[in-house]
């Protein structure tokens, strides 16, 4: 209940903040928001695009949230995503097989790629106590430059210098029937994969001994050690799972929403995953919903730009404000605590006042 109020008020405050910015820059907030939400929800095709935009965010949000729950701050989702997507792309481009074979192999490749990329910071943390914030950021750039070299060298498209060849349709998560159902939207099977993964992760966290161990290490590694839980093993395992989730984000992004991998770009979904996780209170279902909310914002923003005279930079700031408030839900927590405390104090003094009379 409390988390619900926190997330809700974070969003409300964010919307108010954005509205103030619009008003200050001389735009009508109501109109702005109307087009923002219409842009994401107006018709079935736009709704599909919103779902698609949210899909990689579900994975990265889940990746960050899972790490958070186990006491780790994985901000390398962007790199893990890139490398996972890259591994999946290699399979998709180099292997000649039917879709029924390719897709599962690509899913495995994405999982392995992301996991490998997170394994290194996990190992460094477990063995040498290198802080994962530092090492995951470094890994982002290693991924960036690895892909920068490897894509032109091995997967280069015939005619585009900075992108890999396009994946054949059978090697993407696109599904014609789904796209048609949503009026030509680029929503794809990644969404269903994401929902399945959300359920699996929720199950692991809440119902299994593995989740129990990982959370214990996250909360207090000293008592986990005391209880005989392998702390180093748990840290590495957490990073592996977190990385695997980010790797799946790569699959959803580069072989679902897109159909090739570009060099020189670290996907923004990696960092947005942090905000998604915070707004979703680090719970898998919360992440699912908050990722879709972010998808709505990103998806509707362009339409707001097109329909109003709010310039894109202001639109970016509005989105950033909403995200900022969402991500600082800790602050909301304080505000709410303060508010409840005050109310109780007032009630208390009222009672004692009556007593005197």
């Amino acid at each position, binding site marked *: *209940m*409390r988390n*619900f109020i*926190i*997330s*809700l008020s974070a*969003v*409300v405050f964010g*919307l108010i903040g954005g509205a103030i910015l619009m008003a200050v820059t001389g735009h*009508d907030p*109501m*109109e702005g*928001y*109307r087009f923002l*939400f*219409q842009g994401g*929800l107006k018709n079935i095709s736009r709704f599909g*695009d919103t779902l698609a*935009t949210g899909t990689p965010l579900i994975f990265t949000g889940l990746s960050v949230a899972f790490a958070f729950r186990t006491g780790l701050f994985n901000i390398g989702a962007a790199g893990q995503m890139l490398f996972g997507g890259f591994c999946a792309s290699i399979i998709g481009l180099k292997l000649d097989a039917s879709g029924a074979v390719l897709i599962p192999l690509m899913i495995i490749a994405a999982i392995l790629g992301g996991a490998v990329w997170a394994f290194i910071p996990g190992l460094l943390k477990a063995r040498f106590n290198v802080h994962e914030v530092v090492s995951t950021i470094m890994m982002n750039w290693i991924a960036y430059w690895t892909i920068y070299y490897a894509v032109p060298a091995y997967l280069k*498209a*015939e*005619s*585009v*210098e*900075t*992108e890999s060849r*396009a994946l054949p349709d059978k090697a993407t998560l696109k599904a014609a029937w789904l796209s048609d159902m949503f009026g030509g939207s*680029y929503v794809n099977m990644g969404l269903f994969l994401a929902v399945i993964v959300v359920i699996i992760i929720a199950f692991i966290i809440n119902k299994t001994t593995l989740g129990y161990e990982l959370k214990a290490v996250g909360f207090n590694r000293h008592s986990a050690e005391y209880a005989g839980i392998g702390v180093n093993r748990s840290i590495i395992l957490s990073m592996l799972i977190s990385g695997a989730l980010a790797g799946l984000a790569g699959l959803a*992004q580069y072989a679902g*929403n*897109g*159909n090739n991998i*570009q060099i*020189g*770009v670290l996907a*923004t979904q990696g960092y947005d995953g942090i905000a998604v996780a915070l*707004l979703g209170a680090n*719970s898998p*279902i*919360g992440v699912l*919903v*908050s990722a*879709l*909310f972010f998808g*709505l914002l*990103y*998806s509707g*923003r*362009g*339409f707001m*730009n*097109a*329909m*109003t*005279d709010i*310039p*894109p*930079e202001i*639109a*970016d700031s509005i989105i950033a404000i909403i995200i900022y408030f969402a991500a600082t839900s800790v602050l909301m927590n304080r505000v709410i605590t303060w508010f409840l405390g005050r109310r109780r104090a007032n009630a208390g003094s009222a009672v004692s006042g009556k007593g005197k009379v």
Partner: protein
Amino acid sequence: MKKTLGTIAMCLLAVTLVAGCGSKNSNNAGNNAGTNAGTNEPAKASFKAGMVTDSGTIDDKSFNQGTWEGLEQATKDLGVESKYLKPSGTTEADYLKEIGNLYDAGYKMIVVPGFKFETAIYAAQDKYKDAKFVLIDGSPHTADDPTAKVGTNTVSIFFAEHQSGFIAGVATALQLKEGEAGFIGGMEIPPVQKYNWGFQQGVKYANENLGTKVTIKPENVVYQGSFDNVAAGGQLAAAMYDRGVKVIFAAAGGVGVGAINEAKTRAGAGKEVWIVGVDGDQFKDGVYKDDKSIILTSAMKKVNAASFDMVKAEQEGKFPGGQTLTFDIKNDGVGIPTTNPNLSDDTVSKVNEIVGKLKSGEIDVKAEKGDLIK
């Protein structure tokens, strides 16, 4: 579970908000929707031209800025409504989404800068048959098939960057007479490579025919690999200047900005260093004291002219749909700025001679590497 409920409720709220606003304002929907509304009579104002930016910002001193300046010019001179949108990512889907947004908002003329839009425009020209597309620096095709398919509602525009680089190279050599020159590129892609090759040919031409002694060493020709890493640009430029390079041709967007900043610092400390700007006239960006600038000259391609011309053509009903246009020295689509405070009159007059020879075809600049550096 409660968290879940929370987030769901949150989204419900968002939806309610939309519905609420929708019913309130639906009557005057289209009315407020314009930007840059022209000052001319309202009849012309119904013509809307939009742009989707590439990954950089609108003030990138390069493609985005040039294209947008052309549209602003069109707003001012032709009363066209113009607007640009920024995609949230760099995938084809991101680009298509913004193109769709512009289309839905009534922008039936859409200009996009940069080769990254090639595949998106390939899809868009068929999807939005009644819209006109201008693709600058690229031609629509699929990722796997380089064969261009310029739809009847699309114009694909290229520039002869090598000619621009050549002229800048000649001007540089003439002005400095001797010393070392360097090159910093962004990504190693054709437009940037052509600048590089042209520049080298220009320097070589001046050395062979005009008695200058400007050298370019292989280690001083680098591609940084991105268009946005300002810090790396500064470092690369610093390293080159330390190696004794006097002038750097920076064809690298934000990376070039880093190089310019480094040069400004050094010039401020009394060193003689120069930058040759790119795409637009970068003289103002290089000002470090009073009106002194470290921009020797700029190798320009007039993107703004291209976008303006296309809007104008469409308004006049002469949109050259289906064509691939090349802006080169013959139609003044490339070259160096008309005023160059850092070039001597002598240099300028000699350069103008060379420009004449280029126009007449007496000098031929190759658009390929040949035996040049990188």
